[in-house]
């Protein structure tokens, strides 16, 4: 099978107009700058408040002379100083504010879940619509799972993925490999395994574009019992993923989507361990939140076919994008965008702890930098495309939280640095030692599942703080790039390299 051009770009015709440098789309740039301005202003306002608090209490600090104490062979200075009571009370008030915000986000999400938008779209579909089942949301019987695997020259990893899929405790009812601009035998491998292969035609929009073509062919043939799983060709599912997903979707006819909880693959040393710790904590957080998931991961998620159909119908009406496209190909991170799209239509979603996915780890800091920049920028751009709505307000809050986290962590690190550089004799503050101990315990406990290496890295505290600073630099770089309308790049790890290294 040969395609035009390796990257799948449509061939330039003889009489085509010469390429003119295009002015980037004004509107999206303006929206991008707006989100930067809103996030930065919100962070500055909170910072100004914190400094106002700091100034107010700075005068109230009463310096207590430290006391010498003998601990083992060392003589150390210990200060009994604790922060003023009012400051602690004010902090408690701050925590209460955060709690109220979190609860109200949850309320907003709950109200959003009864949004009548999907009903409106169904009503407009008219009498000739073949999908009359839509108006009766109760589904009887079991769900039928169709797995879509977008693959771009994946002949090395595809057989592994397909074999792993065959190990699932509940088998998918249909598997379609979406071969996108492949120059290798991806499609043939799929057929050898007895699965279907769908080849994209003239697709220039990467994974999202290929999936859109496949879904345009698939969705009109689905019924209310159909669910569609989209999974990457280089991920492996936990053995009970499909079983549990099918269970959940059968038990609750109103559940729209089931996402995966992802873990990092082993290997790649320190940089890999940082990412694995991050993923372990994230999965723990999702579990603690009873599956309230922030993003339905693009690596493996199950959607009701009807919901995808509604997304396609709602684009350009309720949500941004071109009519009829399930995935918005303008988005840098399609999975995040699709999550926002579904939430804007009142979808409910969950990530059961059994639905695990082992995903690829970025092998080098450079790859990680590119990947995180794409994620972060994609998240910000998607928010700027959607604006502040009931469905997105939580995600705006998240971005402000990341921004203020950058301020808080770095001011702490600067304070520590200045202190270390200027003290004559180190003074121990038992109050702050207890606080530090709480943090260490939290870091270690949350990575407990990750094994010994993870726990040791977490207990050291400082490396992970510096990793956080790395992520914050990515965040700030993204704000700058969006402000100056710099072009975004896609990052891809060459699988050959990854295989050679491991």
């Amino acid at each position: 099978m040969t395609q035009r051009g390796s990257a799948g770009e449509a061939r330039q015709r003889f009489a085509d107009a010469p390429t003119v440098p295009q002015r980037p789309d004004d509107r999206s740039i303006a929206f991008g700058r707006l989100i930067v301005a809103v996030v930065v202003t919100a962070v500055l306002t909170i910072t100004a408040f914190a400094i106002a608090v700091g100034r107010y209490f700075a005068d109230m600090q009463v310096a207590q002379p430290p006391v010498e104490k003998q601990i083992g062979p060392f003589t150390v200075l210990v200060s009994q100083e604790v922060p003023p009571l009012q400051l602690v009370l004010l902090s408690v008030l701050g925590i209460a504010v955060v709690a109220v915000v979190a609860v109200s986000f949850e309320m907003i999400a709950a109200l959003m879940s009864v949004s009548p938008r999907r009903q409106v779209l169904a009503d407009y579909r008219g009498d000739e619509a073949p999908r009359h089942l839509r108006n009766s949301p109760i589904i009887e019987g079991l769900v039928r799972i169709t797995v879509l695997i977008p693959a771009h020259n994946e002949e090395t990893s595809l057989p592994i993925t397909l074999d792993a899929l065959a190990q699932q405790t509940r088998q998918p009812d249909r598997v379609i490999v979406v071969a996108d601009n492949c120059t290798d035998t991806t499609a043939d491998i799929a057929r050898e395994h007895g699965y279907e292969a769908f080849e994209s035609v003239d697709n220039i929009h990467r994974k999202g574009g290929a999936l859109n073509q496949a879904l345009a062919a698939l969705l009109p043939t689905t019924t209310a019992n159909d669910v569609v799983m989209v999974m990457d060709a280089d991920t492996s599912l936990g053995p009970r993923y499909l079983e549990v997903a099918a269970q959940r979707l059968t038990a609750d006819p109103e559940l729209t989507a089931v996402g995966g909880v992802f873990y990092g693959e082993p290997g790649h040393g320190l940089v890999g361990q940082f990412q694995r710790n991050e993923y372990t904590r994230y999965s723990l957080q999702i579990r603690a939140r009873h599956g309230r998931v922030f993003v339905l991961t693009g690596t493996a998620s199950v959607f009701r076919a009807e919901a995808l159909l509604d997304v396609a119908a709602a684009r350009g009406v309720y949500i941004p994008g071109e009519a009829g496209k399930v995935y918005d190909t303008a988005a840098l991170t399609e999975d995040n965008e699709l999550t926002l799209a579904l939430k804007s239509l009142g979808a409910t979603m969950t990530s059961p702890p059994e639905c695990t996915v082992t995903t690829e780890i970025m092998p080098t800091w450079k790859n990680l930098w590119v990947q995180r920049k794409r994620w972060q920028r994609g998240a910000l751009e998607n928010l700027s495309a959607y604006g502040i709505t009931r469905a997105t307000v939580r995600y705006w809050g998240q971005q402000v939280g990341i921004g203020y986290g950058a301020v808080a962590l770095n001011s702490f690190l600067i304070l520590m640095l200045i202190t270390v550089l200027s003290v004559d004799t180190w003074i121990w503050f038992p109050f702050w030692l207890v606080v530090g101990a709480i943090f260490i315990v939290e870091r270690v406990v949350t990575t407990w599942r990750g094994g010994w290496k993870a726990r040791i890295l977490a207990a050291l505290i400082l490396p992970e703080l510096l990793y956080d600073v790395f992520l914050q630099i990515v965040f700030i770089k993204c704000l700058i790039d969006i402000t100056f309308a710099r072009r975004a790049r896609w990052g891809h790890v060459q699988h050959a390299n990854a295989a050679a290294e491991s």
Partner: protein
Amino acid sequence: MSVFAIAIPAGILLPQSTLNETWFIVLSTVVAFNTIIYVGLTLSKLIPWPRQIHPAQVRSVLARIGFKNAPEAAVSQIAIPEKPESDDPYEALRRSVARRQIPQAFALLGGIVLLLSLASWLTFRERNLIEPVAELALGLTFLLIAQILSRRGIRGLTMRWVWIIASLVLVSLMFYEAYLNQSQVPLAYALVAMTMYSPITLAWRPTLVAAALMLIGMVVTSVKVPGIEDGRLVAVAVGALLAGFVLLQLRLSAIDELADERSRSHALASTDLLTGALSREGLLTLLPGLAATAERTDQSVCVMLFDVDDLTRANHQYGTHYGDDVLKAVYRAIDTTVRRGDLVSRWGGDEFVVAGLGNSPNAAAMGERIQNAVRREGVGLGKAPINVAVSTVAGLPSETTFDALLSQAENSAKALPGA
């Protein structure tokens, strides 16, 4: 590591006295404040989350408190058709420019408030600390207004009045601050605002109303604030307003010129701006060449008419944006289905006309291929299906005219069942 720091004498790099300076104490208090909050958030992870709230629970609660979440509530949110706001082409362009730029102006205004507030905060240390927080919040409000205005289908006319009211509020706040602090400095800011608001409204009437109100405000304030009782600042305010009027006039004439330019280029365009197909004029320009080629090579010219059914209904239900997407998708479908070299043009609102060399293809087969191509585009996914009616005719250029072929095609389209 810290244990060994005991042995290191007299600060490594900075003097010990750094630790007693005010800024350091403020920094450490801020960090203490943050740290206690983050400890609280860490401990709050021990509080178990309740299960996810099921939509059925929400519905039952809503029903109990008598709130009806009727589908009608959402209909108004479907994008309203974007029509020109005025029949006068000059006024229509002015309003559409205002519509695009007033949100930007709000965003920039928010940015300026932010920068000024930070600058004055950093330079004038002695100010009350709640004030910068209030100013930052004001900047944030402007940014949020920009968000809201730019997303909703708000008309240019409405935006103008929002802008005028916001300018009036801003100027009155400065008058009030001048009165409160008995200082003339805020009046200087007010003069800047009075110069800048008018060119953004792009209309005379609201500008003049606001100018009158601002002038009255300035007269009242100069009575109340010491040092400017002789009305000098009122004279300056008149000057500021006049300067604003000059800028407004310059912008209006630039936009009017653009409107002229636009109508001229519309008349000359050979490409349909929406779909990228040839325009009616474009096709008519290329037809003589096609006819000549056909005569020289002894072929006939075929004309195909593609008519998108029910486009008005689609526009009515989902907004014109959807109709535009349908037209684009149908154009792409036609362009990939017809033969290379055929001239594809958008003939009317929902009609495409294709002219090419050779005999006419079978209309039914062509219709099926178009239908498949449209389906592959996916534009009607999840919506009422889109039908494209096709009729095809052909004739020798020496024996017939394009006009005759087209009306023949139109007649056979009318004869189709269901048309």
